[in-house]
C-alpha cells in the first residue's frame, strides 16, 4: 500500500467495506436493542457515524467504544477492525 496523506488514505479506505461484529454489553444491550450483530462498515466510517446510521438519535455519552478489544475514538475511522464493542461504565470486582 502506497499512502502519502490523509486524503489518499481516505481514497484507499473508501474502496473497502468490512463485515464487522458489533457487541453491546450491559445496559448498552437495551439501548442498542441487540447484544451481537453483524453489519457492513466502510473503513472510513467512524463509530459515531455507524451508531447514527443504525440507531438514529442514540446518545453515546458515557459509553466507550472499543475496536478489536482496544479502547477507540468515537470519531476516528474504524479501518480494518473486525469487532466493535459498546461499553457502558464498568463495575467489575
Amino acid at each position, binding site marked *: 500500500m502506497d499512502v502519502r496523506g490523509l486524503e489518499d488514505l481516505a481514497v484507499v479506505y473508501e474502496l473497502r467495506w468490512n463485515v464487522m461484529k458489533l*457487541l453491546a*454489553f*450491559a*445496559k448498552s444491550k437495551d439501548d442498542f436493542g441487540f447484544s451481537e450483530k453483524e453489519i457492513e462498515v466502510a473503513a472510513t466510517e467512524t463509530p459515531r457515524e455507524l451508531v447514527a446510521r443504525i440507531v438514529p438519535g442514540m446518545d453515546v455519552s458515557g459509553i*466507550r467504544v*472499543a475496536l478489536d*478489544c*482496544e*479502547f477507540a475514538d468515537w470519531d476516528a475511522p474504524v479501518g480494518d477492525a473486525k469487532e466493535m*464493542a459498546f*461499553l*457502558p461504565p*464498568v*463495575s*467489575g*470486582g
Partner: protein
Amino acid sequence: MKITIVFTEEGIVVPEMVIGSREIGAVVEFQGLVREMEGEEALDGLFYEAYPEMAEKVLRRHLEELGEIHGCESVEFIHRSGWVPVGEASLYIRVLSAHRGEGLRFLADSIDRLKQDVPIWKRVS
C-alpha cells in the same frame, strides 16, 4: 512478572499455592464476596457480565504495568461471571512478592484498575 488471568462461569476455587522462589516473603490474597445489601436493597446475589477477550487484554496490561511499578513476582487473578450468590466470591487475587509493602500496593492498585476500565459489569438480576 508471572501473570495468570482466568474468567470463569464456575464458583472460584482457590488455586493451589506454588512458591516458585526462595525469595518470596509475602503472599497476599484477596477475595471479593457478594454482599447482601447493595444500597437499600437486600440481594440474593449479583449477575456479572464480562467481555472476556478484552477484559483479559486490558487487565493484563494493567498488571504488567503494576509489576513494573511495584516489582512483584507473580499474580493470579480470577473473576467469576454469571450469577454469583451472596457470600460467594466474584473475585480472587493472589500476589507473591519479596516484601509485604509491594504486594499490598500491587493488590490495592490492581483492584482500583479493575474497576477503572476493565470491561466487566454487575447487575442486580
